[in-house]
């Protein structure tokens, strides 16, 4: 693969905002001549930042799953649902297809993000050349599907706005949904702060 030169080998930097190909200078604070964004060979402190955001996301992910996210009040009955019991209820009473979609968005996608970003980070830290094309593909997958986890947060918000039959029936959000929303935001920031170019920075012959 020697026919594929990388930017730093040619003394070039691609602007991460506008994509302009710029010549690398010795100055520390060089800026893109076209859009003015800082020119950096790699996102600064990418590994440390991504780890920090990922660990923070995992910490709020625990209460997000343990605490109930929604309360349904009807005469003589108060029903609190966590993410998982909400999915079970949807499976039993509503639609199994939708239950699978919600399960994917709320459980599979966040778990996948933790596993994939964790794996990518460990590989980068060890300078591993293992499965580089697959790791690149996994990162793009995470980027593409990351925001779909917000599904359950929106469902709770919509139900809260719609189910307001004063004494008869109402829906209220519970703290779990806040933790879950924060999990999604933090994992998205983690994915954005990871620099996929590091996957290909492992030293040695190709």
């Amino acid at each position, binding site marked *: 693969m020697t026919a594929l030169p990388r930017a730093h080998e040619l003394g070039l930097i691609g602007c991460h905002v506008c994509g302009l190909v710029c010549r690398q200078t010795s100055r520390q604070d060089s800026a893109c001549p076209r859009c003015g964004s800082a020119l950096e060979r790699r996102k600064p402190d990418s590994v440390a930042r991504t780890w920090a955001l990922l660990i923070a996301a995992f910490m709020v992910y625990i209460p997000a799953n343990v605490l109930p996210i929604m309360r349904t009040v009807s005469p003589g009955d108060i029903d609190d649902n966590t993410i998982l019991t909400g999915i079970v209820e949807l499976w039993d009473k509503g639609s199994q297809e939708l239950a699978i979609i919600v399960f994917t968005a709320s459980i599979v996608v966040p778990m996948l993000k933790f596993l994939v970003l964790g794996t990518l980070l460990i590989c980068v830290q060890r300078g591993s050349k293992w499965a580089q094309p697959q790791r*690149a593909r996994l990162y793009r997958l995470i980027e593409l599907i990351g925001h779909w986890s917000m599904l359950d947060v929106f469902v709770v918000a919509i*139900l809260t706005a*719609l189910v307001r039959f004063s004494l008869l029936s109402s829906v209220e*959000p519970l703290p779990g949904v806040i933790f879950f929303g924060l999990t999604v935001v933090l994992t998205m920031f983690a994915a954005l702060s990871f620099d996929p170019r590091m996957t290909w920075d492992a030293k040695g012959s190709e």
Partner: protein
Amino acid sequence: MPRWLICKDCDTVYRRLELTAGEVAVCARCGAVLERHHWFDIDALTALVLTALIVFIQGNLWPVATLSLNGQEISATLWDMIRIMWTDHSRIIGAITAVTLFFFPLLNMMGLGWLLLFARRRRRAPGFRLLMIMMHYLGPWTMSEVFVLGVLVAMVKAKSYFDVMPDPGIYAYAVLTVLITVFAGVDPRRLWDYVADRPP
């Protein structure tokens, strides 16, 4: 057209090729899409953005669904949902829904529309640089398509207890989702090359 291209995912440098209809340039090292041939010219894109903006306004003015129980009816718009969340329940959730479903999509569409109106005459709109940078950072945080699925799930969940009726707002949002999918294949970064690099 600049002659060089750098893959944003792996830093590989390429000589740029002229693409013809249907062609996609893919990075030989990591498989990322480098560039697509664009089906839409600037006029078509402008029309699409204006359509998206109109549909977005409709989707926000009209309620998305109505529930009824013992003759009592409640309907809600997207903004009702944001307002109720913010004032009665959780400000954090209110803020997250407000920015990802209302402010960011609106800013994105208005920004792109503004740039395209000038780009049709090969001119850089006032604020071109800032708007291009803003759109780059807002991109991942617009979630209108997730909202459509959210309404669908909420309606199915509510169906076991109430009479549920979809309202025009959700149809407008469904159309918006289709338009967003079309836009997913368009890289607005080509505007940097398309309009001349001189102050307006």
